[in-house]
């Protein structure tokens, strides 16, 4: 057997390879290329802006403009959503390898999640910088806190992705169920509206959503410039790690049987 150190090195080398494969075949192979990672969220943002400010004339966005208020939360949500959706179906794409070559299958999921999140984080930074440049009240130094917040999100997303990806191999319905579920979750998360607008008797439920915590922390950092550590952050990290551990446990249980089902 290989010694653990060498196996770690091999897994890292594989991760680099798969990461490159995920990133390049997804974006660089298409004509629109990397730009697509920016175009899609910007188009969504424009539509929301039109609907909420010109039609509903919504107010109460914690003193900032609707554009900045939504942009700060929309990008991480779309990143997480796309990462989960893509990772859920990523294993069959490596079917040829899984049937023929011995390698740690989970690396495939990590590479898929990392490629999506990295790309969207880059888009996030660009959009925030542009909003700041056109005079929106964005505190760019808040990105310092946004990085660890995204990292916590990545841990949780990886856990969810591991669970769904392993399930999808056996039950192909996962990807179909995922789409409406994620859409509903988006509207149940205070992304397009502040938590304060939620009726009081429901507020507890919405606040219990871990993504609500993430959105609140990002807004505090980027809209108000409050870069601080809170005790709640530890709880969030614990939740993310628990999700990861559960997802990985499930993946490890199911992955020895992938070979026969991919």
């Amino acid at each position, binding site marked *: 057997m290989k010694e653990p150190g060498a196996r770690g090195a091999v897994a890292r*080398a594989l991760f680099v390879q798969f990461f490159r494969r995920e990133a390049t075949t997804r974006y660089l192979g298409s004509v629109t290329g990397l730009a697509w990672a920016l175009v899609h969220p910007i188009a969504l943002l424009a539509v929301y802006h039109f609907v909420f400010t010109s039609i509903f004339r919504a107010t109460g966005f914690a003193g900032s403009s609707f554009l900045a208020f939504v942009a700060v939360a929309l990008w991480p949500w779309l990143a997480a959503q796309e990462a989960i959706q893509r990772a859920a179906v990523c294993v069959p794409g490596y079917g040829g390898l899984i049937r023929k070559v011995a390698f740690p299958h989970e690396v495939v999921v990590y590479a898929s999640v990392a490629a999506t999140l990295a790309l969207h984080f880059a888009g996030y930074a660009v959009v925030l910088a542009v909003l700041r440049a056109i005079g929106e009240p964005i505190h760019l130094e808040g990105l310092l806190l946004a990085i660890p917040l995204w990292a916590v999100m990545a841990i949780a997303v990886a856990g969810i992705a591991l669970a769904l990806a392993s399930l999808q191999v056996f039950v192909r319905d996962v990807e179909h169920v995922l789409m409406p579920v994620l859409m509903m979750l988006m509207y149940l998360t205070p992304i397009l509206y502040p938590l304060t607008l939620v009726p009081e008797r429901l507020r507890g439920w919405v606040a219990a959503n871990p993504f609500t915590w993430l959105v609140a922390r990002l807004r505090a950092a980027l809209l108000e410039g409050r870069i601080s550590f809170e005790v709640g952050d530890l709880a969030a990290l614990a939740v993310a790690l628990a999700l990861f551990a559960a997802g990985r446990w499930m993946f490890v249980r199911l992955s020895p049987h992938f070979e026969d089902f991919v």
Partner: protein
Amino acid sequence: MSGTTEPLLELSGVAKDYAKVETRGGRLALVWDLLRGRGASHAFTALEGVSLSMRPGESLGVIGENGAGKSTLLKVVAGVIRPTRGSVSVRGRIGALLELGSGFHPEYTGAQNIDLAAALLGITPAELAEKREAIVRFADLGSHLDDPIKHYSSGMVVRLGFAVATALSPDVLITDEVLAVGDESFQKKCMAWMERYLAGGGTLLLCSHSMYHVQKLCRHALWLKEGRVERYGPAIEVTQAYLAWHEEKSGGAAARRPEVRTGEGPDVHRVKSLALEPGEFVRMGAPLFVRGEAYSPDGRAPVVLVGIVRADGTPVYGVATDMDGVSPAQTARDRFAFALTLPSLALLPGKYVVRAHALDPEGLYLFDHVEVPLTVTGDSREMGLVRLEHAWRDVVPHDPSNRGQIQI
């Protein structure tokens, strides 16, 4: 490659079940069973109770019919699938030449695919840095190295795959059939590599339908039948038992002969001439001489196989120079003479064909054959193909007028 006598590879009681899922609900039930750490409740057993051990230099041939579980066994050894029961212990590096190029990505260039394949094979980046040059040289792709491999011919893909797989310098090399890939000059490189590998103490786990190759290359053989070990032991014994079973089952002869390679040109071993003495007509029991000359492209003595088949194609007997530990004698730079004496021809009267085959010096591939007709003459009412030495005992002379009366 270590020189210890510790087994490189040990399988004990290995079994592999494949889940059988017929309904949609069955899939959910399967996931539930697997998550609880149970096996699938409806399963097909592909392997059961397979135990074997391989020591350095003791190559093993896996034989059996299609569907007997050979591929599953190789996948278990390669680590692609985990056995449902039993244990696999590996001391050393395993290289699998199962499907060359299966780890490649078509959009990547050859050079990028080397990185990817190396990572999949467990070559660390540091190790790859040392070996990259050798891989590139072996694959010999020239300027195509920087083209996406979707533009490669299948032969080029295989060359690249072989170059990466062998760079691993595995302790055990798993391969399906003897390497028969690429064009002829690349095949030669592969064979030369294999010779060096085996001579250097390398160990093969060969899955083959060619009993000839298994006998030639492997010390032990394992016969799988319906997922179980039917027989495991010295290669000659197991392959002969398998062939006997096979002949009994199908009534025909199985592939005990080497693989036939067809080819033209100066690279191919050939039989240049073949003659019988005294001639085409030989009396039963008289001596027969078979003489001929073989051509070898590289000046190394080829292996020559002389065989006799009945006119309808039924093989009667065949023997090769390497089986008897001899080699054809060199008469010119690329010419080798052979002469075989059969002092008293035991063939029963009838029409036969004498064939001479030229093989490569390793005796692995059969390149060419030449045949001449042979008619055995004589008066005999005996049946079959050959006269076996025999004697009757407790008999009296046959007398057609004596109609079976019992003498008291």
